[in-house]
């Protein structure tokens, strides 16, 4: 028996006319931790689905543990020891921890009845294997994301997993939870279980993975031990272009777009004062709960400030609601585009004009022709990867969705655009595009506020960065004086 667990060669798969995989090879040894990296839409998820039997490949060969499979079904894959932990973990929020863990095992052993004592024993044993301690009787809906993930891992291990594939496992975890997850992965590795982590986060790849496979446009573009990849090579392989980390220093003039004087909102932030000049990009950062996001929400009227004054273009304005904010030309790109920024089921085009429908209303009638023109214009201008404005927005990748959220506000011709986490969950290529769009805006005289915890992003794009700590303004720094280490020290410093 060789020590290669999974070997796929020449996997091809197309959907309709689009070739998602163009002949990919991948090999995973027993007990290996491999990272599968690539930008959104590169074919990562398709490859996982082929390996787990959810999709059948058009061409190519899958060999698991020395056995060749012509048409791999999900059940074959599970029996062969392949387990996928999806981003949403596929847990049942309404069932207890114990049942969630034991359910699959019972299902696979074809039990007809439920022995609750046995369910608890199975769950207890599975948790002991990875050293997890979660109360068994609690409903999973009450668990934190990290613990839900532990439940999913326990469940995977129960099925006698030999390869666990994790899809973006760290997206919603705190630093400490990530460390804990990595401990568990190492524990699995010691037991000879291979792990494949799908990610596009560089730092994690370095920390946990031994080997790396990078996909781009459905092809494997690079592969090798992790230490052969430095940051530029990693990014180059993933995006196919050299992405320089350019520093942008907008030229500001003395015209104030926005003057915020001593605004407060109980439980969120107190006495915040700052100015925004024409041609300026202002960054706001802080730890979670520091009030950074809440300032954005206040300026956009979602959770208005209760005291203090806001002036735009020298005139005092009242922002008590989103309507007030929009009337004054404020746009807001929310942190969670899926729930707050987009109409997921509606077409891309409809999303681009969602905030400006009124401007197409002439004498009680909507000007559909103008609307259509705007839709096409934004798709082209922002290079959204979409064939037309018709498909629903949920079919786009994160980066392209975010461009559409931007387009929605750009179409309102804002005077001030607030972006909360503009590039969260966006791949590197689209990130660069989005930064370029922002620079174009600033050049047109729009005031831009970027709220983010992505420190390199702030240093690259902003003139000044406000630091929030515990709801108070802890300081305002010129980014020319800052680097990442200094900024992160400032963030966590005790006031």
């Amino acid at each position, binding site marked *: 028996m060789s020590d290669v667990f999974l070997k796929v060669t020449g996997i091809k798969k197309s959907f309709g006319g689009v070739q998602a995989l163009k002949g990919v090879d991948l090999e995973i040894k027993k007990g290996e931790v491999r990272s599968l990296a690539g930008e959104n839409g590169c074919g990562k998820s398709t490859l996982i689905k082929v390996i787990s039997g959810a999709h059948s490949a058009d061409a190519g060969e899958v060999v698991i543990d020395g056995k060749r499979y012509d048409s791999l079904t999900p059940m074959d894959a599970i029996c062969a020891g392949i387990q996928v932990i999806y981003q949403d973990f596929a847990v049942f929020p309404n069932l207890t921890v114990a049942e969630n863990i034991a359910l*699959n095992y019972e299902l696979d052993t074809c039990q007809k009845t*439920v022995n609750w004592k046995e369910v608890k024993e199975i769950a207890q044993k599975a948790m002991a294997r990875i050293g997890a301690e979660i109360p068994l009787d609690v409903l999973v809906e009450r668990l934190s994301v990290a613990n839900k993930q532990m439940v999913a891992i326990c469940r995977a291990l129960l099925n006698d997993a030999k390869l666990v594939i994790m899809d973006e496992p760290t997206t919603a975890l705190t630093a400490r939870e990530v460390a804990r997850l990595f401990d568990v992965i190492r524990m699995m590795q010691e037991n000879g279980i291979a792990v494949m982590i799908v990610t596009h986060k560089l730092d994690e790849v370095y920390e946990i993975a031994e080997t790396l496979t990078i996909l781009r446009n459905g092809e494997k573009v690079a592969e090798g031990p992790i230490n052969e990849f430095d940051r530029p090579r990693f990014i180059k392989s993933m995006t196919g272009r050299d992405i320089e980390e350019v520093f942008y220093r907008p030229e500001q003039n003395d015209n104030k777009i926005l003057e915020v004087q001593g605004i407060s909102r109980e439980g969120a932030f107190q006495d915040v004062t700052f100015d925004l000049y024409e041609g300026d990009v202002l960054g706001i950062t802080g730890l979670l709960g520091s009030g950074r996001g809440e300032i954005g929400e206040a300026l956009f009227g979602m959770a208005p400030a209760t005291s203090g004054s806001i002036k735009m273009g020298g005139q005092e304005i009242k922002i008590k609601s989103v309507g007030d904010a929009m009337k004054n030309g404020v746009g807001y790109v929310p942190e969670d585009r899926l729930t707050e920024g987009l109409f997921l089921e509606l077409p891309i085009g409809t999303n681009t004009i969602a905030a400006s429908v009124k401007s197409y209303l002439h004498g009680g009638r909507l000007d559909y022709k103008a609307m259509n023109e705007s839709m096409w214009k934004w798709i082209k201008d922002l290079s959204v990867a979409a064939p037309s404005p018709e498909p629903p927005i949920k079919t786009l990748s994160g980066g392209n969705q975010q461009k559409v959220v931007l387009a929605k506000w750009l179409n309102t011709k804002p005077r001030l655009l607030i972006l909360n986490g503009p590039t969260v969950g966006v791949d590197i290529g689209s990130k660069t595009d989005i930064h370029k769009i922002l620079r174009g805006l600033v050049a047109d005289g729009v005031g831009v506020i970027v709220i983010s915890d992505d420190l390199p992003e702030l240093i690259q794009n902003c003139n000044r960065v406000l630091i929030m700590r515990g709801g108070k303004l802890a300081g305002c720094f010129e980014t020319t004086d800052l680097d990442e280490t200094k900024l992160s020290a400032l963030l966590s410093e005790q006031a």
Partner: protein
Amino acid sequence: MNQQAKTERIKNIFSSNQMIVIYIIAGMLILIAGINPSAFGPATFIDTGRSMLTMLMFALCEMIVIISGGIDVSFPAFATFCMYATTKLMVTAGIDGVLLSFVIAGAMGLGLGLLNGFLVGTCKIPTLIATLGTSSLIHGALLSFVGVNDITNLPPQMDEVGKQYLFQVQTDAGVSSMSIFIILPIVLCVIVWLLLRYTMLGRSIYAIGGDVNSAQRAGFNVKRTQYFIYMFVGVIVGIGGMTYTLLARNANTTQLMGSEMMVIAAVVIGGARITGGHGNVLGTILGVALINIVSNNLIVMGVPTYWQTFLIGLLIIVGVIITSVKAKRVALAPKI
């Protein structure tokens, strides 16, 4: 630690949905006893039990559908169809027999349930739309093809069984009798409880109600489970409808229609979440009991009918608010 877990468990029991309904029921009973002590006795319980009888059978069906993440508004039409068509068939063919009537009505229910199962499981039509459609379809079919007039001349055995009592209680106000049919919902409660709690089939109903995609990926046969649900519900609804006819000793095409909202309300008051995944037999029994206690005793207390409608509406809203506030509290509570 262990002690703490124990006290928390006890605290959870006392603040659970079922307990809240029990508090409300207790409050109602005290109120009724205070206003009209004579109405408060064994007779009250017997009357309430009798009036709960068919509603409880329907509510258990509705609960199963709600747990699976669906909603069924077709059962009044199905029950009406089964009881009326069965009675008409037996009267015209001149056959008699209580058990036989249940078998025929149950078989009809099975067929109708298969229709719902096909629409929901195979065609993937949202349950509300599917059952709205079948409700109208089946009720319309009954009125057009089977008949519209009340049937009051039941065959002798079937007529007789409605007057069979398990026991009777003599009170000042008269005789209160507990119908023999009370056994049906009791047996059904036990069956449904066992099904939901101790079989993989029952757990798969919870699983698809919790997250249908997860259930699919975990290897549950969602389609088969849905077929089972609607066919099982069909059979029970058919038997429930027949029970209704035998109790009332007549079959008509209208009386059950429109009862779905009250049944759904009872199930939701009993702690089932309309979004699926939650609910249990005890809660549903309590929900049905509460609604029946209120509506029965308000009559005895001389409250005008339109006030009853108002009060039951109020009760439903309060009950649902409590459930949803609790669900929200869980959602916002610090995660473990």
